[in-house]
């Protein structure tokens, strides 16, 4: 029933994982998402993978954007993916990674379930469009 005719906004979590204090990129992407009409939950700095999972599950986000510049993506990102799986949240959460990720690692991350990896200099519009085009279906 159309109590509120608004289209459902995209909900996303922008998360910083691990010992990485550089959050300008995360802030910029959070703003870009907000300006695209998304509802953005920002995790804050230095989150452990399980905290990111907790936030993603509780906030029931469509998109999880992990910003990682420390090089520890091979360790941290799979932990997040496993956590999402444990809560049954993996299949309808679009996980994207932003930061500095070598090409070889990118393949491994994608194999682990990451939808896309965005390196430095990616135009904001490209990321926003990707999210819109790849939103998971909601049961």
């Amino acid at each position: 029933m159309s109590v509120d005719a608004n289209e459902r906004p995209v909900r996303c979590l922008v998360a910083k994982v691990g010992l990485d204090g550089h959050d300008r990129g995360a802030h910029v992407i959070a703003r870009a998402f907000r300006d695209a009409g998304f509802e953005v939950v920002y995790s804050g700095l230095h989150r452990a993978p399980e905290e990111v999972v907790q936030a993603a599950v509780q906030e029931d986000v469509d998109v999880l954007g992990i910003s990682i510049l420390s090089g520890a993506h091979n360790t941290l990102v799979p932990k997040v993916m496993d956590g999402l799986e444990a809560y049954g949240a993996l299949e309808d959460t679009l996980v994207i990674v932003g930061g500095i990720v070598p090409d070889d690692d990118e393949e491994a991350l994608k194999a682990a379930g990451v939808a896309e990896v965005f390196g430095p200099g990616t135009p904001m519009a490209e990321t926003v469009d990707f999210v819109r085009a790849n939103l998971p279906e909601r049961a």
Partner: protein
Amino acid sequence: MVGRDADADGTDAADTALSGSDATLVESLLEGSHRALARVISRIEDRTPGYRAIVSALHDHTGSADVIGITGSPGAGKSTLVDKLALALRDRGDTVGVVAVDPASPYTGGAVLGDRIRMASTVGDMDVFFRSMSARGRLGGLSMATADAVTALDAFGKDTILIETVGAGQSEIDVVRTADTVAVLVQPGAGDDVQTLKAGILEIGDVFVVNKFDRAGAERTRAELEEMVHRRDEHTGTSHPAGHHGPRAARATGPTDDGYGATDPTDDGHRADDGVDEGPSPWTPSVVGTVAETGEGVDRLLEVFDAHATALRDSGELAAARRRRHAAAIRALVRAEVGALANDALAERGGIDALAARVRRGETDPYTVAAEVVDPIERCLERAAEGEPSGSSGSDAEPSGDRSSEKD
């Protein structure tokens, strides 16, 4: 209007019956699935078809949680205090739900929900369920969505539920009013802040918190607040025989004295304007000092919350508070439904823009247009009233049936 008829009868299947998958969802929530709880809150927020049946089904399992609303101006320290409160509640074994409401951009509808950043003390603890909610620019619907989210958290089994919202504007006031206990947060030296409290928020506070109590001017701010609470007493107080230091005041205040202590200006006529008051309210609004950053005074604040909860139960005021919450829910539902009907009627007449253009061209005027839109709805109501003479006041009866399981 044809498409709406089924709804108006309250027989819309999607509305009243729980579909198979939704029944599973409700079951998972009641069994303690965090994912199901999160999904139910999303359904509530999005108002997706069938969400009402879900909330109705959950309603039977509610009533055990203490609901505390926390409001105050931006930067007063609400999120930090909520974090420390959650920690203190967890320390004594309570499970916690938090609903944090942030504003949305009026232009894009987008929002950055930042309250979660402050939840540092209880991270990784799934027994604290924190949910950020955007105001999404919906009129009146926000308090509805918040109240329904609280229903979900309550049914899930959370012992204490905190609602956090910026205290600016009527919709936020409506949000915290859905709580049993309302705490209003102020920071020291905020002389003008205290002034702004006069416009509405002063009346709804059960507890006033002077946060950042280690800063200069804290005592003064507390004194000002106390004075204002006294004045509120003088303005509204007619029915209470007890003086400022009467036995009731002493009982209700609980923790007292020392620098951070709660004080006891006498409350009066507290929300008595609802016409559902059950005799004199025993509660005296307290003024408590805290330093949320360090957690100082938080335990005492919890004691005051407990004292208020006890006072509510002992006096029967809790039943009144819950009834107020349900009344607000019914009212909001009816308004939203009638508003939707009106929107449909507007769309049928060419849409609001076309109608406005006609007014601008001098072809008609806003009053005539409004009457044209509303008259058919009114006639339907009249017909419905004639059809079933026993039926109570028309539209009010229908959505309340949705929540017929409500209990005080």
